[in-house]
């Protein structure tokens, strides 16, 4: 049972200071690059100040959500390109179609054999539409189940990169059992006889995210969010007005630090100052290191331990009191 502390209040003015400092550092860095000048003597104290500031402040939750969605934020495939070799994308659910929002296949993750599962949002408009901005149909979850079968058969640890606003809320998705497909994926993942490490890399919206989130370890990037409902969805339910999303984001406690406090994730992966989109290579390095470290820690266990580890992890999540 988890009993979280009072969550922090937000400090928007300080964020403003932080942003200004970040801009100043970026300016100096680019000057250093373009002119060849050594500006480290100026940069070093500024960077130290930034580190202190970042530890002290919180952005508003809504600012985090916007950062998680910002144009240029790396999608799953941008991490995969940087962190894996020999990724072989496998397609299809063997029953209806191939979903492009939820993709996967075996790969070498920084040299480790894994089965990748990930929501892929798309990079340009056409790609985004094809992939429904990372919102999967039932076929996506059924493909995930099939790939988990293969992971078990060939002893491939599962690495899941979560980045979706939620499962696709379409008429046909309902016809083909969206809820059923998600439930089946959750159940299948809980039964994996290999270790699973999940990372929310951008958005973690509702059951559509959780469907591939049953990890022995669940990590989240610093500016990602994970919640039972999107801020917009909550706002339109509570205030009948999706413009109240900032207020809903506050109420939902959906940021990485919140989730760490709630015991829902094991680790927050630090992003480059200002967000992963400002330095994709550095963000990838941080993600790669964290996932690899957890994979290595889990490697020594038995299939029974991987199964029971996941079961115990999720069995105890929740907040209640007992009379």
């Amino acid at each position, binding site marked *: 049972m*988890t*009993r*979280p502390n*009072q*969550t922090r209040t937000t400090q928007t003015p300080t964020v403003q200071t932080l942003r200004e400092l970040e801009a100043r550092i970026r300016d100096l860095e680019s000057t250093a690059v373009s002119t060849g000048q050594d500006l480290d003597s100026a940069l070093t104290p500024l960077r130290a100040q930034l580190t202190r500031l970042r530890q002290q402040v919180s952005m508003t939750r809504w600012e985090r959500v916007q950062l998680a969605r910002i144009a240029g934020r790396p999608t799953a495939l941008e991490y995969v390109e940087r962190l894996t070799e020999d990724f072989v994308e496998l397609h299809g659910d063997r029953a209806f179609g191939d979903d492009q929002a939820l993709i996967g296949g075996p790969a070498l993750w920084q040299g480790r054999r894994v089965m990748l599962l990930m929501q892929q949002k798309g990079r340009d408009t056409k790609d985004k539409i094809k992939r429904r901005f990372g919102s999967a149909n039932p076929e996506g979850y059924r493909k995930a189940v099939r790939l988990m079968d293969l992971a078990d058969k060939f002893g491939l640890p599962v690495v899941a990169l979560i980045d979706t606003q939620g*499962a*696709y*809320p*379409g*008429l046909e*998705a*309902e*016809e*083909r*059992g*969206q*809820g*059923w497909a*998600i*439930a*089946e994926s*959750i*159940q299948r993942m*809980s*039964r994996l006889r290999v270790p699973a490490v999940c990372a929310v890399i951008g958005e973690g919206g*509702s*059951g559509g995210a*959780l*469907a591939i*989130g*049953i990890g022995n370890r669940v990590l989240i990037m610093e500016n990602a969010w*994970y*919640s*039972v*409902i999107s801020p917009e*969805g909550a706002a339109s339910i*509570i*205030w009948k007005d999706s413009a109240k999303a900032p*207020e*809903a984001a506050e*109420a*939902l*406690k*959906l940021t990485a630090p*919140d*989730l760490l406090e*709630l015991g*829902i994730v094991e680790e927050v992966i630090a992003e480059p100052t200002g967000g992963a989109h400002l330095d994709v290579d550095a963000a990838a390095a941080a993600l790669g290191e964290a996932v690899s470290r957890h994979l290595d820690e889990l490697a020594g266990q038995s299939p029974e331990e991987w199964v029971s580890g*996941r*079961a115990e992890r*999720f*069995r*105890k*999540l*929740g*907040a*209640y*009191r*007992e*009379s």
Partner: protein
Amino acid sequence: MALDKFFRRRRPQVNPPSEADTPDLWGKCPQCKENVYLRDLALNAYVCPNCGFHHRLGATKRAEVLLDGPIEIWSGRVHPVDALNFRDTESYPERLARAQAKTGRPDAILTGRGQIENLSVAAAIMDFEFSGGSMGSVVGEEIARAAERAGEEGLPLILVAASGGARMQESALSLMQMAKTTVALEALSKRGLPYISILTDPTTGGVTASFATIADVIVAEPGALIGFAGPRVIQQTIRQSLPDGFQRAEFLLEHGMVDMIVDRRQQRGELAKLLRLLHPASVGVAAPASVQSEQAP
């Protein structure tokens, strides 16, 4: 008969959320608009004797309709907390207090042990009257405990789903109940104990995407709304009106998602038949010596 007894104990409600304008002994059926004598409704498992409309049931009435006699209650010791300090138009504790006062229950779930045609079962019944049957930490915990206890006691589990989805006020903690219930249900699966879910009006959101749909056999009530995304959200996505009967039990049967639609008045018989076939050992399980009946609020 349980229903008869129930009627004498309490005044039944045709359509609880809008009872203000309902006279004491007659109620208007929301489907056929006919006036129905409430005693007849109660005697008919809250199915309209005129048109067959299945009225929504709170968990207490549901237990009476489902089980031979009183339920031996397991749930009730787990209480919700406001872990997120959630505040919207009112605070989460205020909402909880209101729902608790209305239902006399700590949260939207009743679990326990009972009999169906003399077969012992564990029952987990969601209470739509408590905050729309929304699933938070308590609902998840109670279902998980019921599944585990059913496993230990060698009982099949019957789950009655009735829920608008996950409980927003618990955010990610609520989301995690989908996983928690799933892993706890392994206690039944490993022991080869049947798990049957009954989807009633409405069953939507996270409940549909977790424990309710991984049952061995899925029963639905006639006309029940069942789906993952809500109709309003889907309409916004597709920007056209939804077909008649969309996300209703009959639609889901046609699309292969449920095993059968069973009229509430036949459910006990069908469940007993299934339990005898899937798990003949249930036939031999004796009723517990002392049974604690749930009291009306």
